[in-house]
């Protein structure tokens, strides 16, 4: 294979060899590249790769420069900071209880992820392994939820979670109303579950549909109940899918903007997330952009760790899940 390729290449070089001495450095390099395309590709590859890395990482670098700039010198922050003020990373916690906001974000993320994974696993199993009437319409309906801007859900949900919706009246004169979830984790976790379920269901459906048929039957023959077969045999096989769906859901919840802003009053003790945390750096007259930048960098760290740890898993999860036939 490789040998025949080489033979072909040397044949070409021999033909043009006599003219080589008459060329200058550039022409020689050019012809050298033409004769050895791998070298060009290699160089091109590195150029492209490095430019991707630079454009991707530059905003983070700039954020760091911004964070290190002292408040008084916050104009024209360029490639190097105008001053050096690493205390900003400590001030972020004293000015605003940012650690509480981060804690809230993480807990709500975990809670929602757990909820989504449980529901999506069951749903994915049902969609992926059973043919039943209404399967495709139901899947399309679930997908259709994601067509709506989050704002479409807002008003009724806001009324629902602020105990404004009366379900029914009991004979004694009391009414049963919806719970007061405003300023609590539920007010965010529940909408998030509905918003991010479609994607997870989609991923897990794909996974489950590719587990070989007959495994459940084999399990049931062996004496497992239906649910037993599901939990003991089938679910473990979807572990990569669950990991993928879990990580993507957590990232989506952590990053969310709309409900995070609206479902609490902004105080850290009321389960406000980092969205409010960052907004509370807006001071009396001016916004402390350097503190916001420092807080942003700190806020990205949990997710960055997650990405580092899980990136292998996500990619292999999506691969194995078969984004192919």
């Amino acid at each position: 294979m490789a040998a025949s390729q080489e033979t072909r290449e040397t044949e070409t070089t021999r033909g043009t060899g006599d003219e080589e001495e008459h060329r200058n450095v550039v022409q020689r390099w050019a012809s050298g590249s033409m004769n050895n395309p791998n070298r060009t590709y290699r160089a091109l590859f590195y150029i492209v790769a490095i430019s991707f890395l630079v454009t991707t990482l530059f905003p983070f670098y700039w954020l760091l420069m911004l964070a290190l700039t002292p408040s008084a010198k916050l104009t024209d922050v360029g490639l190097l900071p105008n001053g050096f003020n690493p205390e900003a990373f400590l001030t972020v916690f004293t000015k605003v209880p940012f650690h509480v906001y981060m804690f809230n974000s993480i807990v709500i993320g975990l809670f929602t992820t757990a909820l989504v994974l449980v529901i999506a696993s069951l749903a994915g199993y049902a969609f992926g392994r059973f043919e039943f009437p209404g399967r495709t319409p139901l899947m399309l309906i679930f997908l259709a939820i994601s067509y709506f801007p989050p704002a479409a859900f807002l008003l009724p949900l806001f009324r629902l979670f602020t105990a404004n919706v009366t379900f029914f009246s009991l004979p004694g004169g009391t009414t049963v109303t919806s719970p007061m979830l405003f300023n609590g984790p539920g007010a965010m976790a529940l909408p998030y579950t509905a918003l991010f379920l479609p994607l997870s269901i989609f991923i897990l459906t794909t996974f489950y549909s590719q587990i070989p048929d007959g495994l459940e039957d084999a399990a049931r023959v062996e004496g497992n109940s239906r649910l037993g077969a599901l939990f003991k045999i089938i679910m473990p096989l979807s572990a990569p899918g669950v990991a993928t769906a879990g990580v993507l859901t957590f990232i989506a919840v952590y990053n969310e903007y709309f409900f995070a802003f609206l479902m609490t009053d902004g105080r850290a003790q009321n389960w406000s997330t980092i969205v409010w945390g960052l907004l509370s750096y807006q001071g009396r007259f001016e916004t402390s952009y350097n503190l916001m930048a420092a807080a942003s960098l700190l806020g990205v760290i949990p997710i960055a760790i997650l990405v580092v740890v899980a990136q292998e898993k996500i990619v292999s999860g999506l691969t194995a899940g078969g984004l192919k036939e």
Partner: protein
Amino acid sequence: MSTDTGSGRSLSLGSPMRWIEDLSDAQFAYLLLAPGLIVFGVVAFWPLFRTFTMSLHADVLYGPERLGAFVGLQNYVELLTGQRNAALPRPFLDLSEPLTSAVTVTIIFTVVSVFFETLLGFGQALVLDQDFTGRRWARVAIILPWAVPIVIQGMIFYLLFQPTVGFLVEPLHQLGLISATPQASSFDSLLIVIVADVWKTSAFMALIILAGLQSIDRSLYDVADVSGASKFERFRTITLPLVLPSVLVAMLFRTIGAMRVYGLIDTVSSCSTVPSLSCLVVQSFSASRYASAATVAFVTAGLIAIVVSVYIIKFADVDGGGGF
């Protein structure tokens, strides 16, 4: 796995388990779907139903009531024929000002953004598909923007293009790409929002496309090399067709997301300068025009449904992501 005989075990099941065993496949499937249906029912379908009811009533601006009389589909008619434009903070669709009417802005944003992020994401995925030292860290670096919260992503680009704090306005203005006051211009602001979006979402595309690339059998490449195909031919005949399904799935999800853009616009510029459809919904709610807001929300969903069905119909023949 258990080696007990089957019958002995099943007899010892409690009655709920027994009942489950006796369900047909379809009924069992619906049982499994029940938690999802309950959650969707309460948190998604019911609110959407209420919002739809809102869109069938009239706006009320005075007095304590929030909704007016029942008017049927009048809101939809007025919205789609442009009669409602004066009541909205920005026109729904006004072809004479394409950069400040919701439908056109949303479409321009979606098309340009998805195009560039697919291109960039594909490029990044191709790079990450190769084997080289430090690949693990390159992967982390390229996926990292996807992990950034919208509020932070918005802040970064807002500040970069803020004439006093950032440094990008001067040089780009000299090059004639943007005006000296980008936040005042709808065109410039739209550009900045697109750049912010592409930066983050090309990471998502890279992720999905990389997964697709990784699942391509390497031996196919070897066959290509043997038969003397150039890298380009190899890409065109092997890579592209096999990775197309992943690309399309990613594009589908991103298109849906792009057409609903709101948080990014709110943090980078403002809903007045770059009015997307979701922006229009939120602003109408804020102006206490609940019925109009609900109408725009449903029309937005309708538009997205149309776009999605175009995807599904047109590309259904390309064997797409499993499940459908």
